């Protein structure tokens, strides 16, 4: 399977550029990057969307865009941040549309999904605005500092901080527990 994929990657690269060793190397690099990051990006998108299929679609779209621009993006310091930024934007957009439509139709039930491990937390997360869900996922699930959260969400450090603060306060209320005194986001 891996050899076939690498061959196709190399062939695809060759159709849009010159047939050089560089393309094959780039294709191999992309495949390695994909394997290292795809699951994590899908899981982060899932924390925003709460829909496994939609999360995979969003991640798929983000990595497809990355593939088309791999020559350029791979030269960046943080291609992982680039692909997350694209995925998060798509996820927030999709979640917003779903929620808007669902509210207007009066049916905001989540799509049918297999059981979720932490039902209380999952239900509480769904009540946050998508941008706050994304901030929580990046800060608490991916353990990214607020500066990186801001970079990925394409907002200021202060805005990212507000997203995390509001989200945590809301989650604390919904989960009926006091806020943390050891506030690492404030």
């Amino acid at each position, binding site marked *: 399977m891996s050899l076939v994929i690498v061959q196709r*990657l190399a062939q*695809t690269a060759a159709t849009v550029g010159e047939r050089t060793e560089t393309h094959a190397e780039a294709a191999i690099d992309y495949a390695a990057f994909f394997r290292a990051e795809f*699951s994590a990006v*899908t899981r982060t998108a899932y924390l925003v969307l709460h829909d496994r299929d939609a999360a995979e679609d969003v991640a*798929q779209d983000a990595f497809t865009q990355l593939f088309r621009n791999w020559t350029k993006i791979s030269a960046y310091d943080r291609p992982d941040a680039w692909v997350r930024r694209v995925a998060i934007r798509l996820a927030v*957009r999709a979640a917003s549309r779903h929620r808007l439509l669902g509210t207007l139709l009066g049916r905001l039930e989540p799509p049918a999904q297999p059981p979720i491990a932490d039902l209380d937390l999952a239900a509480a997360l769904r009540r946050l605005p998508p*941008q706050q869900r994304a901030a929580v996922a990046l800060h608490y699930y991916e353990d990214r500092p607020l500066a990186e959260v801001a970079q990925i969400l394409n907002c200021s450090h202060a805005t990212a901080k507000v997203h995390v603060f509001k989200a945590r306060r809301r989650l604390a209320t919904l989960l009926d527990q006091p806020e943390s005194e050891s506030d690492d986001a404030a």
Partner: protein
Amino acid sequence: MPPDDRLRTGLRRIADEVDPDVERALQRATSGRPQPRIRQAGTILSYAAVAGLGIAVIGLGASSLVNRFGTAETSSPSANLCSDPALPTCAGPLEPGVNRSGLFVPPIDYIIPLDSPVAWDNPEDRPGTFTLHPAGPETDAIFFFRDVGVLTATCNPRIDEAIGNEAVDIAEWIMANPNLTATTPEPVTVGGLTGVLIDLSASGVYTTQCGNDPGGVYPTELPIVPLFAGAGSGDLTWFVGGNERLRLYLLDMPGGGNLVISIDAIAGDFDALVEISQPVIDSIRFDPAYY
């Protein structure tokens, strides 16, 4: 356990239940095929279709698909490629040449150019909504809607009954709307229907933050301007916000009502989307037997 640690642990438990098939996803991302949405019943056969093995033969019923030589073929819709699993009647990946919609009224004949720089797919085909999606961001596509009405600019938007639903009514509403930046409407004919063409985006004037309202209608902190709702089946709501740009073809139906075509770029390059969409728009013929 401190709340922050509990949150981290809980998030990991939830997220770790998602276990995507990375190798299959890698194939899809690099196949050069469009990335249609997959919903439910993710059989091996449906994934094979996505991986480039052609139109899947797993649909329900049959629809007429006309090939580039103009002869009718029978093709089954690709159920698992459609955005609406309850109505799996889309065509999925599209072949170059002449194609025809299935459920949208009026039926649309259109041509995917042989020299189109991107692959196209049809993820949605319903009586009131139809979508042609070029390979690229899922959000960017040509959308067709029937019988829309404009929305009030509120956190709980509703159709503004004071505004008519003819093309000129909607165009005038757009031009007079301070929340929108629009080009001067131009007369246009598409597929036998007449109306106006207008490009628009959010002006930035609309700054209402609805994310914290009790109804939760606006979940983001990005102000998004309500545009229109309706689309025949009554479940469409369309907005514009941020850097999103739209080209609207507002067309009148001879028997009353309207048909709106929206070339909509949210994640990608609007001008590039318009350029690759124009030959498709120019090829459209709405079946006059249905209006």
